[in-house]
């Protein structure tokens, strides 16, 4: 199984290479000259030309790309024009917050989605089914940032139950370490930090997870309905297997097969939403970094963030594919 995962990651690498070239080319086509933006306003043509030469912008595009790629392979993504810090370090600092958000949103979405799918299926033909349908349609039709704003208003402002900005309460400092708040706080034995981080994560992760759970529930319900009609379900029922066991031990795993790749595909959408939600909640993650970089036409940062996004999507799809292999013996080579 590990070998398959490694193989899938290896297959994804060329994709990553193509994406990096695409990002590089697209950004160079923008009517933005990094040399100009990195100089104070009112610089002379000569100064700009010197700067362009210094930044390597006067070389042909493929050469620029080759140089950039060569450095990127060594972990050097260049210098942020706006923040004057190495891009690699910026991304590394921002990544844990985003991973924590996207990961917990995904967990919430999976739990709600699978639970919702099972519930939808169990209620089929009953009077409560349309009610649940409506809830799911609602969850799906509100974009995650509106959920976020709604949560901020209800739980943050009106009820004042949950903190609305940042990753930690003011006054608390993140313990040093991996950058992942939950890991670092536990390692440092700072349960107050852990609790605060949890409270800060509840709203953004739920806002993101809810919008994402609804389509999972729908897909799971549809595949459960298809699986329910299969011969092996009828045969198990004829052996006297109970309905609960039929659903959980026989139908669910078969119905998960079409649902998993769907979750993988949706992950890209989720990460996109995470960037927006971060900005709303003022989390110092990739989203905030991205918005800042876009505002200042900070091309090296945009480039690196784009690449990180692509890598994340590919990794999740490889993981989903491997999981599918574990669940479906028919896909394995005998």
């Amino acid at each position: 199984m590990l070998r398959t995962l490694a193989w899938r990651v290896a297959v994804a690498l060329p994709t990553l290479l193509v994406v990096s070239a695409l990002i590089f080319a697209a950004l160079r086509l923008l009517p933005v000259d990094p040399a100009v933006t990195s100089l104070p306003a009112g610089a002379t043509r000569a100064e700009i030309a010197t700067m362009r030469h210094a930044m390597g912008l006067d070389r042909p595009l493929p050469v620029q790309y080759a140089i950039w790629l060569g450095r990127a392979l060594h972990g050097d993504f260049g210098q942020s024009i706006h923040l004057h810090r190495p891009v690699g370090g910026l991304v590394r600092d921002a990544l844990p917050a985003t991973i924590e958000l996207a990961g917990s949103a995904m967990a919430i979405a999976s739990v709600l989605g699978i639970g919702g799918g099972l519930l939808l299926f169990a209620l089929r033909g009953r009077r409560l089914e349309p009610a649940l349908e409506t809830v799911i349609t609602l969850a799906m039709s509100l974009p995650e940032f509106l959920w976020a704003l709604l949560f901020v208003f209800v739980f943050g402002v009106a009820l004042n139950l949950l903190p609305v900005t940042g990753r930690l309460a003011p006054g608390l400092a993140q313990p040093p370490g991996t950058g992942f708040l939950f890991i670092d706080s536990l390692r440092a034995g700072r349960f107050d930090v852990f609790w605060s981080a949890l409270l800060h994560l509840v709203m953004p992760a739920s806002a993101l997870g809810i919008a994402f759970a609804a389509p999972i529930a729908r897909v799971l319900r549809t595949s459960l309905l298809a699986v329910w009609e299969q011969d092996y379900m009828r045969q198990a029922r004829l052996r006297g297997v109970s309905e609960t066991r039929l659903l959980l031990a026989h139908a669910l795993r078969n119905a998960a097969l079409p649902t998993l790749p769907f979750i993988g595909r949706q992950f890209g959408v989720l990460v996109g939403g995470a960037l927006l939600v971060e900005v709303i909640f003022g989390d110092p993650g990739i989203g905030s970094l991205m918005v800042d970089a876009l505002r200042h036409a900070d091309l090296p940062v945009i480039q690196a963030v784009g690449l990180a996004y692509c890598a994340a999507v590919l990794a999740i799809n490889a993981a989903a594919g491997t999981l599918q292999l574990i669940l479906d013996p028919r896909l394995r080579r005998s």
Partner: protein
Amino acid sequence: MSLFAVSDLTVTARLGKGNETVFAPVLRGVSLTLDRGMVLGIVGESGAGKSMLGRAIADQLPAGFAIASGRMDFARRNILALTPATRRAMLGRDIAFIPQDPIAALNPVRTIFSQLREHFAQLGLPRHQHRARAIEALAEVQLPDPADLLGCFPHQLSGGMCQRVLIAMAFASRPRLIVADEPTAALDAPVQARILELMAALQRRAGTAVLFLTRDLRLATGICDRLAVLYAGAVVEEGGAASVLARPLHPYTRALELASPSPDMRRGLMVLPDHMPGLAALATANGCRFAPRCPVRSAGCAEREIPLIGDDRRVACQYPERTSRIVPSPPPPPFRASAGEVLLQVDGLARRFRVGGLFRRREMSALEDASFTLREGEFLGVVGASGSGKSTLARLIVGLDRPTAGRITLAGADVTRGDAAARQIRRANLQMVFADPASALNPRRRIGSIITQALEAAHRPAVEREAVAAELMRAMGLDSELVARLPGQLSGGQRQRVSIARALAARPRLLVADEIVAGFDVAIQAQLLALLARLRASGIALIFISHDLAVVRHLCDRVVVMQAGRIVEAGETERVFTRPQADYTRELLAAAPPDIGPPAPTLLAIPPPSG
């Protein structure tokens, strides 16, 4: 006191909504008894109600179906009066089921062991005994290396092996009653025979009573003690198995017998008009439901309800003495060797596949060194078990696949390479008909437009297309009003006729038919065979692929027998069937259910399983 008795059971289906609701009886006043250790065959076409009987026994009627009256006694209790929980607790313990399609009846994502032990756990077997008991159970159904099989998934086993696993599960609890719903319908003839022998052996050893649901009268006669023939939801005839087949009292039983081709001799097939009434027709039907199709009916038959009368032999017919007047159709004229020119020549055809990944690559051969010629107007049968290369051969001939070696010559031109010129020659000369008409017909197209697809592609005018559609539908016995229907609104038999008509619309000289009568009941099959036989007059050649020897013997002039990708025997049909040369042909012939009631399989001679 019998072990299991059904008394006057009526099951109805609710049709329509609101004020228009009607109840159609899918089972009507069915009474049956089954003693310990006895095998009772329920014979009927699809839609006759035999599966509904199985589902009623299991308390698992589909939505909209309900038991309207009657009782069902099992071990001295009316099980219809029991709670659903009690009923369910009997399943898999006192009453077990053996399914129709064994590969589909096992959960594809769980190992054989995990499915066996779930059943053992339910039977209350302690956990530590599961493995030993599983190995024992698989050995009992004569599966080789049972310990190795435990970790396998269903897709890694053959259909016959899956069915053995399911039989092992069914017998695990030593149930008193087993309901077997066409347990061998999805299996090849040699495997089918071995599975039936196995079931008979286990059943005798344990004294289990078996309710054997099948549409194959001859098969049922071979293994059942008694038979009940079901038509449109009612038992029309019941009696000792041998006596029912030897002297049928109901015209329908007689018709069933005369409609099925025999592997032992070539004979004429009785073609019943029309088909069994469907659900909607059952809601309003009166009198004898078979009367409209009955060759010996009287005016009064369709008016009066006709009860099942008699003691040991029961029949629901007013004039059972007339049944013997139904005589076999005259045998079809003997074949004469075709003097036409060679239409298709196949030389040393092979298809090999590379399997495996980057490493450990090996070659697998689906077809090796196949050679034969086909003359104009000839009907060639291709027989063999599943996986013997029959369908590969067909795919190569029609150009759906390319051979890795050999030559195909069609109408004098080399079409091996499948280039544009070859495609042109194929289009002008051959057409294919597929096994499953439901998936071969575009569900969104009207019948008329499906039939004339080839003409549409050739940009023929609409007037001509309509004329051709009308003509072909008449030739195929399809009502002209069906022209504007969608495939979903037709019966399976009608759909297959549409599929054949579509192929004929292109005026091919060669028709390649892959198992096109296999999925149908004998009455529908006889209708289709009659249609195909009539094509002979037009001079068309036919390659007829089938696993059913009897059908091939009935229809084809010449036959090739395939085994494991090779042609093991070829020749005139009569010669191959009467004096087979290859061992495999002899084995196939021996495994086919014989024509007239044979002695039941015995416990003694059980060959080792190969499927």
